C-alpha cells in the first residue's frame, strides 16, 4: 500500500488520515485493480468471508444460551431449539453454516490448485490459507463436540485418542487434552473455550491472507502476470463487489435450502442421542468434510503411521508451491496437468466416500489405493510433470484472451502475419 497516494478532499478527513490512514485503506480497497477475466470460481473468497462472519455472529448468539457442562449441554441445545426466540434458526444456520463454510473452502482450494494460484509470488497467501484451513478443521471438530450427543462424545474420543499414537508421551498427552482419564466435563469446557477462540484467530489470519493477496494482486484464469492498473484490470468497486455479491446470493439460496428444508441431512442422527460413555455407536463417522482424511487415517494399518499419513496429507499442501515445478500457473495451458487435476478431484471424492463406509473388504482396498494415489500426485506426478509436460503457449495479456483472441500465442502470431501479408 506504500505505492498508494491518496489525499482526502475534506480537511477533517485529511487531518484524520494523516494520523490513521483508514481512508487510504478504504480507497485502496475500492480502487484495488482486479483482473477483469476472473470467473465465478474466484467469488469464493468473498463467500468465505461471509461464512466466517455468519459463524461468528450466530455462534456468539448461541453461546449466550448454551451451557458448557456435560450434564446440561444436550438439554441447553434443546432449550435453544424449543424456547429461545428463533433459536432453531440460529442453531441450524450455525450447524449448516459449518458445512457451507467447508464446501466453499474446498472449492476455493481446488480453484487455487487448478489455476496455480499458490505459485510464486503467492506462496505466503497459500500457506496462510492452509493454516486457516487447519484451524477451521479444529474449530469444526470442537464445535461438533459441544451438543454432547453420541457422535460428539465418541468422535471426540476417537480423535483425541489419535495422540496416544505418539511414542512415549502419547498417553500423557491424551490425559492432558482430556483433563482427566476419559472425555468428560473438563474436555467439554476446554473445547468450548477453544471453539470460541479459534474463529477470532481465523479472522486475524484472514486479514493477513487478504493483505498478502493485495501485494501481488489476484491471479487469474490465464495465470499470467498483468500490469496494474491497466486495460486488463477493473477497480474492485463496483465490478468485483457486484459480481461477488451475485455469487454470494446464489450461494445463500443453497445455504437457505439446507437451513430451512433439510437442516439435519448433513449431520448424523446419533447426535440427537445424549452422550453415553457406556454405549458405543455402531459406526463412528466424522462430519462429511473430514471424511477424506478419515479414510486416509484408516487405510494405514499402523496407528502411528496412520496419524502421520493423515497429517501429511494436509501438511503436504503447505509445500505445494515447491513440489509443483511447472512455471506455468493455469491448468488451461497445461494439458497433462489438467487431466491429473481432475483425477485428483475424483480421488479426493472417492476418499470421502470411503471414509463414510466401514473400513473393511473392498472399501478398505479402494481407500488404500486412493490414499497411495493422493501422495503419488503431490510427491511424484507434480514434480515430474513440470519438467516433462509440453505446455500450450500462454497469451501475452488478458485482453488478448478475453477478446476472442486465441489463447494460443502461436496461432495469434500466425494470424498477425497472415493479416500483414494480405
Amino acid at each position, binding site marked *: 500500500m506504500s505505492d498508494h497516494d491518496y489525499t482526502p478532499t475534506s480537511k477533517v478527513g485529511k487531518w484524520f488520515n494523516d494520523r490513521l490512514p483508514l481512508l487510504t485503506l478504504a480507497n485502496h480497497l475500492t480502487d484495488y485493480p482486479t483482473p477483469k477475466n476472473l470467473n465465478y470460481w474466484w467469488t469464493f473468497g468473498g463467500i468465505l468471508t461471509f461464512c466466517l462472519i455468519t459463524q461468528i455472529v450466530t455462534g456468539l448468539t448461541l453461546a449466550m444460551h448454551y451451557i458448557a457442562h456435560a450434564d446440561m449441554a444436550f438439554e441447553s441445545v*434443546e432449550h435453544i431449539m424449543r424456547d429461545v426466540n428463533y433459536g432453531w434458526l440460529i442453531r441450524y444456520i450455525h450447524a449448516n453454516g459449518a458445512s457451507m463454510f467447508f464446501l466453499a473452502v474446498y*472449492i476455493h482450494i481446488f480453484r487455487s490448485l487448478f489455476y496455480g494460484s499458490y505459485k510464486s509470488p503467492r506462496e505466503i497467501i497459500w500457506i496462510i490459507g492452509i493454516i486457516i484451513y487447519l484451524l477451521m478443521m479444529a474449530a469444526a471438530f470442537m464445535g461438533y463436540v459441544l451438543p454432547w450427543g453420541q457422535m460428539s462424545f465418541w468422535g471426540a474420543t476417537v480423535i483425541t485418542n489419535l495422540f496416544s499414537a505418539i511414542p512415549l508421551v502419547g498417553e500423557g498427552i491424551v490425559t492432558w487434552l482430556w483433563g482427566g482419564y476419559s472425555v468428560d466435563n473438563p474436555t467439554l469446557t476446554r473445547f468450548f473455550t477453544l471453539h470460541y477462540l479459534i474463529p477470532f484467530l481465523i479472522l486475524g489470519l484472514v486479514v493477513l491472507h487478504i493483505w498478502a493477496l493485495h501485494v501481488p494482486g489476484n491471479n487469474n484464469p490465464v495465470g499470467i502476470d498483468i500490469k496494474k492498473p491497466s486495460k486488463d484490470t477493473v477497480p474492485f468497486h463496483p465490478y468485483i463487489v*457486484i459480481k461477488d455479491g451475485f455469487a454470494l446470493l446464489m450461494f445463500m*439460496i443453497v445455504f437457505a435450502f439446507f*437451513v*430451512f428444508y433439510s437442516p439435519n441431512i448433513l449431520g448424523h*442422527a446419533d447426535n440427537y442421542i445424549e452422550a453415553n460413555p457406556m454405549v458405543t455407536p455402531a459406526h463412528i463417522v466424522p462430519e*462429511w468434510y473430514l471424511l477424506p482424511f478419515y479414510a486416509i487415517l484408516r487405510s494405514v494399518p499402523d496407528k502411528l503411521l496412520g496419524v502421520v499419513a493423515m497429517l501429511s496429507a494436509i501438511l503436504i499442501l503447505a509445500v505445494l508451491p515447491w513440489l509443483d515445478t511447472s512455471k506455468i500457473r493455469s491448468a488451461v495451458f497445461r494439458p497433462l496437468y489438467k487431466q491429473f487435476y481432475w483425477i485428483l478431484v475424483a480421488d479426493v471424492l472417492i476418499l470421502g*466416500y470411503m471414509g463414510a463406509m466401514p473400513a473393511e473388504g473392498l472399501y478398505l482396498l479402494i481407500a488404500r489405493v486412493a490414499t497411495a494415489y493422493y501422495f503419488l500426485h503431490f510427491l511424484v506426478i507434480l514434480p515430474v510433470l513440470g519438467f516433462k509436460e509440453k505446455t500450450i503457449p500462454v497469451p501475452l495479456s488478458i485482453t488478448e484472451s478475453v477478446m476472442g483472441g486465441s489463447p494460443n500465442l502461436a496461432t495469434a502470431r500466425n494470424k498477425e502475419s497472415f493479416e500483414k501479408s494480405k
Partner: protein
Amino acid sequence: MKNLIKLSYILSFFFLSTASSFSAEKVDYLKTDWSFKGLFGKFDRGSLQRGYQVYTEVCASCHSMKYLSYRNLGEKGGPEFSEAETKAIAASFEVIDGPNADGEMFTRPAKLSDKFVMPYENVKAAQAANGGAYPPDMSVLVKARGGGVDYIYSLLQGYEDAPSGMALDDGVHYNKYMYGNKIKMSAPLSDGLIEYGDGTEATVEQMSKDVTTFLMWAAEPHLEARHQMGFKAILYLIILTVLVYFSMKKIWSRVESEV
C-alpha cells in the same frame, strides 16, 4: 454462466453421494403421505391431537418426553389444543413440588409451565422395570434415528413371528425394521387399543401414523414456522439475485469482458 451450471452439477453430485453414504444400510420402510414434508408442509392438526392421545395412553407409561412442557400442546404449530383443553390436560397429571415453608415436598396438579411428567424416577428404575432395556426418551427420537419418521412408522407395524430357526430370548420380540431384528418392546399397538375422541377408527396403521406425526412435532416444534420462513427467505433471495444479476450485467457492459 456455464461455470455455474458445472458448479451446481458437481455440488449436487457430492452431496448426493455423501448423503446416500450415511444411509448405507438401507431398508425399505413402509411409506405413507406425511403432510409435513415439502416446501409448504404443515402438520395435520387432527393427527397431532390423536397422536398425543396415543402417546399419553400408550407410550407414556414407559417413554418419557422430558424436553416438552404442557404449554407446548397449546402453542401455534403444534396440536393446538385450546387453552382450556391444555390446562385440563396439565391438571390431569400430578407433579412433585417443593419444598414448601415446612421443608416438605408435596404433590400438586401440573401447570402449563411444567415439563411432561416422567414415567420413571430415573434411568435405573426405567431399566429395572423393562428387563434391562431403557425405553428411550421420545422428545427428539425421530431425529435420533436414521430413517426418521418412516423408520418409527414402520417399526410400530413391523412386529411379526420370528422366522424359523431364529431363537428369541424371553422378553425379546421380532421386528423386521429393528436394527438386528430384536427388540425388547412388545408390540405396543393393536387394532382398537384406544378410542379416539374424534371417532377415527383406531387401526394400528392409523395410530402409527398419528403418533409418529406427534413425535415429529415433538422433535421439531417449529417445523411449520421454519417452512413458512424458508419459502419467504428463498423467494426473497431469488428476486434479489435476479435484480443483482441485471445490475451486474449493466455495470459490466462498460468493460469488454463477460460475466
